[in-house]
């Protein structure tokens, strides 16, 4: 078996006295797409943010290609070049234009030559149908367009892993499709992705594996067909039952 791209072992985290991640173990192979589902507060977003050290954790290890993400060997930038993240609220910089948002990290952090950074950014924008907006500011774009720019920004350093944190949760329903289409495309291009989502249909469709989290633990993980049609754990059954009742599956 090859080394997993991302390997999480015994990950445990407290917020004060509250246990938010409880001995989480997860290995993600290169080019694999893993969806994390579960109720709000189940720890799935926190788990995602631990992977690129946006959240600190108390016990356990997270490795990228077999090397702990906390290992100084990564330097300050190495990890962030190889692991990109996209947030629910886009978090684009409002004072910077689309192209400036995308080239900020390549230029200032990774010291890419300006011509090269611009060329990469334009190529990515064109690939995602945003070429005409390179000089627009985030507030001039729709939510779906902003999220596409945020995805391009995360891709600008050519990362190998993309973390997606409820990237469609803030979007109007009619704009969800355009963002999901991009994620599907990234899958076909072989991107390794860990996706936190409430879009069960999308998870079933795009994931190689779905993990159901509750109380900070991975209660059940399975191929999407198995997990959605024949959930084993009572908590998963209950969760999916509620989703079905809400008409969301």
């Amino acid at each position, binding site marked *: 078996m090859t080394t997993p791209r991302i390997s999480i072992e015994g990950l445990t985290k407290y917020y004060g006295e509250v246990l938010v991640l409880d001995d989480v173990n997860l290995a993600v192979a290169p080019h694999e797409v893993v969806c994390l589902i579960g109720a709000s507060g189940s720890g799935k977003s926190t788990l995602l943010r631990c992977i690129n050290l946006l959240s600190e954790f108390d016990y356990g290890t997270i490795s990228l290609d077999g090397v702990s993400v906390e290992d100084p060997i990564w330097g300050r930038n190495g990890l*962030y070049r190889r692991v990109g993240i996209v947030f629910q609220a886009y*978090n684009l*910089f*409002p004072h910077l234009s689309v192209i400036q948002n995308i080239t*900020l990290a390549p230029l200032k952090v990774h010291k890419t030559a300006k011509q090269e950074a611009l060329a990469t950014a334009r190529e990515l924008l064109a690939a995602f149908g945003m070429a005409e907006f390179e000089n627009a500011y985030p*507030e001039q774009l729709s939510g779906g367009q902003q999220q596409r720019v945020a995805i391009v920004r995360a891709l600008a350093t050519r990362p190998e892993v993309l973390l997606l944190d409820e990237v469609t949760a803030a979007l109007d329903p009619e704009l969800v499709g355009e963002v999901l289409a991009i994620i599907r495309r990234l899958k076909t291009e072989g991107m390794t992705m860990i996706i936190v989502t409430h879009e069960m249909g999308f998870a079933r*469709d795009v994931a190689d594996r779905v993990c159901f989290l509750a109380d900070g633990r991975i209660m059940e993980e399975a191929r999407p067909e198995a997990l959605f049609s024949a959930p084993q754990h009572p908590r998963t059954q209950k969760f999916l039952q509620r989703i079905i009742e809400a008409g969301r599956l």
Partner: protein
Amino acid sequence: MTTGTVPETKTTAADPDMGSRRTPPPPRKKTLTATERYVPSVISIAMVLIVFGLVAQVVTSAEQWPRIARQFFDLGAMATAFPNVLRGFWINVQVWAVCLFSIMVWGLVLALMRSLTGPWFAPLRVFVVLYVDLFRGLPVLLLVLIFGFGIPALNLPGLPNSALFWGATAMVLSYSAYTSEIYRSGIEAVHDGQRAAAKALGLSQWQAMLYAILPQAIRNVIPVHLNLAVALQKDVALLSVIGVRDAVREAQIYTGMTFNYSSLIAAALLFLVATIPMARLTDYIAKKDRQRRLMGAL
């Protein structure tokens, strides 16, 4: 919810009734008759004229009015004093500009020192806290007196000895305590998601501040700073008490010679000419800023 494939629904174009239904044209702007259009304005202007006219009538018909007019509104005295007062006012404007620039820069430096995290920077943070407590807690006038009279009297080698320099320094020290707090509130008001995004892109703490947080923070606090700039425009007149020959000092000199106060009124008018447009500009920018925020909230 399944995404991706949305079932085809009946489109309006296929609706057979579509051709027969006439969309009404947009409503025409209501045309006002001449009476409707002008009468409210006429009433407003008339009322203002009547009320202010009556007040003026009462004031000028008072027994003491001729004496007041002679003491404060003597046009001849104003004209005589004006060249000196204007020259003094030019000093006010220059001091204001230099102080304002220094205050904005030094206040920002203080705010950045305060925002540094990590145990190594504790002395800087403590310094800023003490600095702000000290200079925000003291009257500007007192600082101007201490610096403007006290320090030149020491004859410190290698440092300027002018009252103007040290008085202006006192203004900068006092006002920068306020501006640093304003900058700090602006920095803290930037959403945490922006910091997370900057960190996730690999920006160092300093780069995140410089490229992501600070530009937004400064834009947030511009209206507040403009208010402070208006206040400073007037407060530079405090330097007159340490002998700086600004507009107020020049006007006082004239008053001292003639016992006529019209020169002070001339100085007052000059200050109003400078501060009122500045205040209007501040209101305008604050309004724009409010609109921008409302747009952002939608």
